[in-house]
């Protein structure tokens, strides 16, 4: 049963990709992609329920479904659906004659397929290959508009991220070597095998290997100071692609870090891994805060907000314990939804006002009352204010932080979150309620249903989860923390 669900989950986007390559008609590709996304979400919804407390292995233990993987898959599937709905409207605006749209949807579906495969990989080396594949496919999505800035962003993305994850490969080889010192030259390197072997290996070797893996997958996840590709790639790609990158891909990379952290926890030898993860989290928050306060591009603002939230996730996983992990996982889901909402709103604003700079976007409530209100609500949500879900998750992570040995990091997180709150909402204040100095003509674009529906679909669950944290989710997160 679970196996069938997994097959549907991964084969649906793959089939959509092949279908889009075969058919050239843009409308057909749109519908194919949308269908694949709906099927994918339907297949992903039961997975956390099924993985509650137990894990499933398939295909000679190459495919594994455990609780944390199921949760990441759910986040990815949700973002895929929302982005697919949004893409229909957005890409019609972007590419009026639709000549290249079939390539876009093929790449889009392929990207979703590789991202959905990643959390399922049990073998650590194959997980690396899945991450590498996501990089390769998304590069062409980032550079899709074929302008000077897009190609520059795509080039920076592929160079920096490939160099980074080659470090992760080195770390993986060192982990394999550490295991081979105990288990002999050939063995299956799965996550559980590594956890079993870890206590018997010298702590220094594990520390070195973990550092390499952290820096490597941290490049992919957008932790500072390896985040340099992120603002460019997320701001230059089309808005649905940015939503997928921020909302789904970063989570998949963070999942790798969380799994390796579980391996070093099983060894229990040194406190270095956790400390380093926490330090990277604080540095990410600091860099994000500095760049958010003085930002000019609307999508770059959202990209730096992603850096901030990846820092918060790193802090959550670094603090550890049931509170930390629960907070981090809840944060993952809420962030995926809210960040998608923000990118959709940013895409709408960019198309309507014809510019990427926030100084050109003025008097939003007057021209777009409904979607403007949704976007503003999203802004309040993403900076961590109540009554939205991100507030609860950040509060949980702060509680975990104050109880952990790295309490200084929790204080730093608090201060930086306040700075980000002020800076981020200042930009929105200027866009919404600032004076209009007669800049050009008023925007004439009508935002259709395709462009606003995903914003509703994203905001409502975040608002609901902000006031109600279901008991079932609590037990689910506890099970993740207890059996990593």
């Amino acid at each position: 049963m679970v196996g069938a669900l997994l097959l549907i989950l991964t084969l649906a986007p793959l089939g959509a990709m092949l279908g889009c390559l075969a058919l050239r008609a843009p409308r057909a590709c749109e519908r194919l992609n949308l269908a694949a996304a709906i099927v994918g979400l339907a297949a992903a919804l039961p997975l956390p329920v099924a993985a509650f407390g137990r894990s499933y292995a398939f295909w000679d233990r190459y495919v594994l479904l455990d609780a944390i993987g199921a949760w990441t898959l759910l986040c990815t599937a949700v973002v895929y659906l929302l982005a697919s709905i949004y893409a229909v409207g957005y890409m019609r605006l972007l590419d009026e004659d639709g000549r290249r749209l079939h390539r876009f949807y093929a790449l889009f579906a392929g990207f979703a397929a590789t991202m959905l495969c990643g959390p399922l990989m049990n073998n650590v080396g194959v997980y690396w290959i899945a991450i590498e594949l996501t990089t390769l496919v998304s590069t062409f999505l980032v550079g899709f508009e074929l302008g000077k800035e897009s190609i520059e962003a795509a080039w920076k993305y592929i160079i920096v991220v490939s160099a980074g994850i080659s470090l992760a490969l080195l770390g993986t080889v060192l982990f394999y070597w550490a295991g081979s010192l105990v288990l002999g030259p050939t063995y299956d390197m799965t996550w559980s095998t590594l956890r079993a072997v870890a206590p018997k290996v010298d702590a220094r070797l594990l520390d070195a290997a973990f550092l390499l893996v952290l820096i490597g997958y941290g490049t992919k996840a957008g932790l500072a100071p390896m985040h340099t590709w992120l603002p460019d790639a997320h701001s230059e790609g089309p808005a649905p692609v940015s939503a997928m990158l921020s909302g789904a891909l970063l989570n998949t990379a963070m999942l790798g870090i969380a799994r390796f952290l579980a391996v070093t926890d099983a060894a229990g030898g040194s406190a270095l891994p956790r400390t380093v993860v926490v330090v990277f989290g604080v540095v990410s928050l600091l860099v994000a805060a500095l760049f958010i306060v003085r930002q000019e591009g609307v999508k770059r603002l959202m990209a730096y907000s992603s850096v901030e939230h990846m820092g918060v996730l790193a802090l959550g996983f670094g603090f550890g314990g049931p509170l930390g992990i629960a907070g981090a996982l809840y944060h993952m889901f809420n962030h995926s939804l809210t960040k998608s909402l923000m990118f959709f709103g940013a895409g709408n604003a960019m198309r309507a006002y014809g510019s990427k700079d926030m100084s050109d976007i003025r008097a939003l409530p007057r021209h777009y009352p409904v979607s403007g209100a949704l976007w503003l609500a999203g802004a309040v949500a993403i900076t961590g204010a109540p009554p939205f879900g991100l507030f609860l998750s950040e509060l949980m992570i702060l509680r975990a932080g104050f109880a952990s040995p790295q309490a200084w990091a929790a204080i730093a997180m608090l201060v930086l979150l306040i700075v980000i709150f002020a800076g981020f909402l200042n930009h929105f204040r200027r866009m919404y309620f600032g004076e209009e100095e007669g800049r050009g003509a008023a925007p004439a674009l009508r935002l259709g249903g395709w462009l606003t529906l995903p914003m509703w679909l994203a905001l409502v669950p975040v608002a609901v989860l902000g006031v109600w944290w279901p008991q079932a989710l609590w037990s689910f997160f506890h099970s993740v923390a207890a059996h990593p």
Partner: protein
Amino acid sequence: MLAAHLDPLAASLFSLLAIASLLLAFVMLGSRWLRDYLVAFTIESWLIALLSAAVAYYGGYRELYLVAVLTAAFRGVLLPYLLKRIIVRLNVDRELHLSLQPSSSLVIGALLVVFAFVVSTHLGARLGLAGTVAVLALTVMLSMKLIGFLMLAVRHEAISQILGLLVLENGIFLGSQILVPGMPLLLELVILFDLLVIVVCFGVLVRYLVAHVGSTSSRELRRLVG
């Protein structure tokens, strides 16, 4: 572990091949002409394939012969051919603007080798493997990684950056052949194919770079800041 119980002749053969690869990485670091760069990379790939075959012979890992042949075919023949085509199409011969003179990068590279050496001897001492070829493998692996990053940082040309990435991968492959020769065959094969896919993607991107940005030097890619 294979590296801990090698007879001296095998150990000197491994160390000779590993150090020759490191030397070629330095040749790449110190050269201005892209053609020299590519030739050094090709020879380095062949040396690594030879090392793989030697490990297969002395360790009795039959499947490593296949890996050696595929490495020679992919990294030694196919990748240089693809890169040569890109270079010819791009019509660039050498790095025109260097942010760091080749001699200075050679000296910095030597310092990086010393750093990698210190780290590896510490790790080797902790694991009880001091004085075996495992420490050499770790040193060469880490040094080639650091040299690859140095190349990525100081070079502007797109081809040089691609070659820097490939040197990174070569370093990991070299180290993994000596340290973990028993790694499952599937993994090694997929990583090899992965490299091919990466170079193809790079080829397409370089074509886009030339078409839309007008040059492949990263000095032209300065529009996105902040």
